[in-house]
C-alpha cells in the first residue's frame, strides 16, 4: 500500500497538476464570490476543457473549482450580504453584521481558516471512511430521509430570527414555493405561466431573497449611507477568537463530513445544521445573527467539510452527492473511469492520486483565499449607493446567463420584493431558503415512503433511525421553545 501511495504522490507532484489545481481554486473562489455565479456553473463550464486532459488532473481541476467556489461564496456573503452560493447563506447571517462593525477582514479570515480546516478534515474522512460511510448511507431509505430533512428544517427554523414560530412560517412558505412545477406524475402545479412548468430554479430564488432586499431597503428606507460602508479595521483573528471557535469548527467539519456523505444533502444543509448546533451549544448563542465569529466558523467548516465528503458516495457507489458531483460523475465517465466499488479495485492508483491531490488543494485553498481576500476587501470601500446597484447588475447578468431565461430574471426581481416584505414583517429568510432547497427531496421521500407503505403514515416511525430523528426533532423544538420562553421572561423582567 505504501508503494502505491508513494507512486501516486510522485504522479501528483508535477508542475502541471499544481498549476491546474491553483487555477481551479482561484477560479472557484472568484466565481463563488460573484453573486449569481455558482460552483455548479464553474464546474460545468470547465467540463469541456477536461476533454483534453488526463483523468486525474481533470477531476482535480473540477474538485478545486468546487472547493474554491464553496469558500468563495462566503466572501460576498460577508462583504455585501449576498451569498455567492446557497451554502454560504448562513455565513451572511453573522458575516455581514461583522463587516458593518468594521470587522469584515476578521470575518473573512475566520471563514478561510474554518473552510480550510473543514475541507482538510473532510478529505481525511474521504480517505478513511469512503466505503464504510457510503454503505451506511445506502441503508437510509425514504422514511429516514424524510425524517432527517424535517429534522434539518426544524433546526434551521429554530435558530433563524427571533421566533421559532416565524421560522416555521418561513419554512412553510419555502416548502410551498418548492412545489411549483412538474410533479412525479406530470401534473404542473401552480403553473400560472408556461415558464413555471419547469419549476423555479434555486439560483434566482436564493439571490433574489438575499441580495435584492438590501437594494430595496436602501431605496425605500435609505437608512444606510456611504459612511456606513464597512471599514476594514483590525483584520487578524486573535488566538483567543480562534480557540473560542475551534470546537464549532471541528464539530462543523464532522457534521459536514457526515451529511456530505449522504447523497442529496450537500453543503447547504450541512452549513445550516452546523450553524444551528453551534448556536444551541455555544455560550455566545444569543449573539448569533448579530456578528458572531463562531457562527461563521460553524457554517464555513461544515460547507467546505461537505465538499470532500460528497465524493464518498460518488467514488464508492457511483452516486453523486449533489449537482456538482453529478457533473463530476460525467467527467469520470468521459475519462473512462466508472465510479463505484469496482473503481477501488481497478483504478487504485488514480484513487490515491485523487486523494493526495485533494489534500494538496486544501493547502492551496488557504493561499488562494488569503490573496483574493485582499482583493475582495476593496469592495467594502465602495459606497453602498453604488455597490448595491452593481450587485443588482451582477445578479441580473449572472442569473440570465445560467439558462438564458428572462423568466429567471423576473423570479429574481420578484423574490427581491418578497424578501423585502419578509424583512418588514420580521419573518426570517434562511428557513425559507433551506425549505425551498430541501422541499422537493422532502416531498419525494414522503410520497415514496407512503407509496411503499400503501398509504400508512406509520412508516415514518418504522425504524430505529426514524425514531431517533423524531426524538431529536422533539428535543430541538423543546429546547428552542424553552430558550424563547426564557428570553421572553427576561424581556418582561427588564420592562
Amino acid at each position, binding site marked *: 500500500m505504501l508503494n502505491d501511495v508513494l507512486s501516486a504522490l510522485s504522479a501528483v507532484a508535477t508542475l502541471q497538476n499544481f498549476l491546474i489545481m491553483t487555477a481551479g481554486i482561484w477560479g472557484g473562489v472568484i466565481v463563488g464570490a460573484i453573486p449569481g455565479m455558482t460552483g455548479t456553473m464553474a464546474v460545468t463550464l470547465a467540463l469541456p476543457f477536461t476533454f483534453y486532459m488526463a483523468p486525474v488532473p481533470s477531476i482535480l481541476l473540477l474538485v478545486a473549482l468546487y472547493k474554491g467556489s464553496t469558500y468563495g461564496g462566503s466572501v460576498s456573503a460577508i462583504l455585501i450580504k449576498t451569498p455567492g452560493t446557497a451554502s454560504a447563506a448562513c455565513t451572511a447571517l453573522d458575516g455581514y453584521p461583522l463587516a458593518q462593525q468594521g470587522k469584515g477582514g476578521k470575518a473573512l479570515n475566520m471563514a478561510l481558516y474554518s473552510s480550510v480546516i473543514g475541507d482538510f478534515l473532510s478529505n481525511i474522512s474521504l480517505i478513511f471512511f469512503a466505503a464504510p460511510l457510503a454503505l451506511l448511507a445506502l441503508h437510509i431509505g425514504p422514511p429516514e430521509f424524510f425524517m432527517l430533512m424535517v429534522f434539518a428544517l426544524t433546526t434551521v427554523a429554530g435558530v433563524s*430570527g427571533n421566533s421559532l414560530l*416565524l421560522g416555521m*412560517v418561513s419554512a*412553510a412558505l419555502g416548502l410551498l414555493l418548492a412545489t411549483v412545477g412538474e410533479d412525479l406524475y406530470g401534473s404542473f402545479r401552480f403553473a400560472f405561466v408556461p415558464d413555471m412548468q419547469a419549476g423555479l430554479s434555486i439560483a434566482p430564488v436564493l439571490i433574489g431573497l438575499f441580495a435584492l432586499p438590501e437594494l430595496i431597503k436602501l431605496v425605500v428606507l435609505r437608512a444606510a449611507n456611504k459612511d456606513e460602508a464597512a471599514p476594514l479595521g483590525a483584520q487578524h483573528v486573535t488566538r483567543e477568537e480562534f480557540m473560542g471557535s475551534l470546537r464549532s469548527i471541528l464539530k462543523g467539519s464532522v457534521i459536514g463530513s457526515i451529511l456530505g456523505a449522504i447523497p442529496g444533502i450537500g453543503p447547504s444543509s450541512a452549513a445550516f445544521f452546523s450553524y444551528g448546533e453551534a448556536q444551541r451549544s455555544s455560550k455566545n448563542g444569543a449573539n448569533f445573527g448579530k456578528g458572531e465569529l463562531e457562527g461563521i466558523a460553524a457554517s464555513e467548516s461544515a460547507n467546505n467539510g461537505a465538499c470532500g465528503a460528497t465524493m464518498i458516495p460518488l467514488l464508492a457507489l457511483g452516486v453523486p452527492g449533489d449537482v456538482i458531483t453529478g457533473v463530476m460523475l460525467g467527467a469520470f465517465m468521459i475519462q473512462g473511469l466508472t465510479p463505484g466499488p469496482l473503481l477501488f479495485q481497478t483504478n487504485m492508483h488514480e484513487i490515491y492520486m485523487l486523494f493526495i491531490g485533494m489534500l494538496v488543494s486544501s493547502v492551496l485553498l488557504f493561499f488562494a483565499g488569503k490573496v483574493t481576500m485582499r482583493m475582495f476587501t476593496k469592495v467594502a470601500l465602495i459606497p453602498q449607493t453604488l455597490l448595491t446597484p452593481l450587485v443588482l*447588475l451582477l445578479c441580473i447578468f449572472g442569473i*440570465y446567463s445560467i439558462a*438564458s431565461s428572462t423568466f429567471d430574471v423576473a423570479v429574481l426581481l420578484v423574490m427581491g420584493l418578497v424578501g423585502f416584505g419578509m424583512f418588514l414583517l420580521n419573518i426570517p429568510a434562511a428557513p425559507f431558503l433551506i425549505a425551498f432547497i430541501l422541499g422537493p427531496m422532502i416531498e419525494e421521500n414522503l410520497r415514496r415512503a407512503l407509496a411503499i407503505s400503501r398509504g400508512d403514515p406509520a412508516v415514518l416511525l418504522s425504524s430505529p433511525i426514524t425514531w431517533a430523528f423524531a426524538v431529536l426533532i422533539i428535543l430541538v423544538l423543546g429546547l428552542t421553545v424553552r430558550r424563547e420562553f426564557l428570553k421572553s421572561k427576561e424581556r418582561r423582567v427588564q420592562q
Partner: protein
Amino acid sequence: MTKPVLRGVLVVAFFALCAFYLIPVYVPRPAFIPGFAPPPDMWPRTVSLIGIFLGLLVLILAFRGGAPAEEAIKTDKSSTKRMVLRFAGVVIAFGVFLAALPFVGFLIAVILLTLTMVLMTGERNYRAWIALLSVGAPILLLLFFNFALGTQFPKGALLKTLGF
C-alpha cells in the same frame, strides 16, 4: 392594526388562498395514480394547512401580547407615505424593466434599470461613477458573458426593426 396582528392576518390569508383557491384550481390531479401513491396536491395542501395553523398561532400570540420582540427598522425618518411611494417606484421600475426587455433588448433595459436604481438610492455625488456603473459596467459584463461564456442576450424587437 399592530404589526404582529397584520403579520398573522397576512400569513393566514396567504395560506388560506393557497389551500382553498389556488390548489383546487392550479394543481390538477391526473386521471390515474398508480398504487397507493399520494396525489400531487397532497403535499402543497398539507403545507398550506400547516401554514394556516401557524398563522393562527401567530395571531393568537399577537393578541395575547406574546409576539417576539420587534427590531426597530432604521429609516431616514421620511414619512410612511414617502416610503410607500419609493417602494411603488421600485415595483414600477422592475415591472417596466421586464416589460421593456423584449422590445429594447437586454443591454438598454439593464442600463436604464441600473441608472434608475442608483438615482432612487438618492445618490447624486459620484456622477462619473454613476455613468460608469450604469453604462460601462453593463457593456463590460455583456461582452464578458457574450465572448467568454457564449451567452446570447436578447437584442430587442424594436432595435431589430430599426436595423440594429
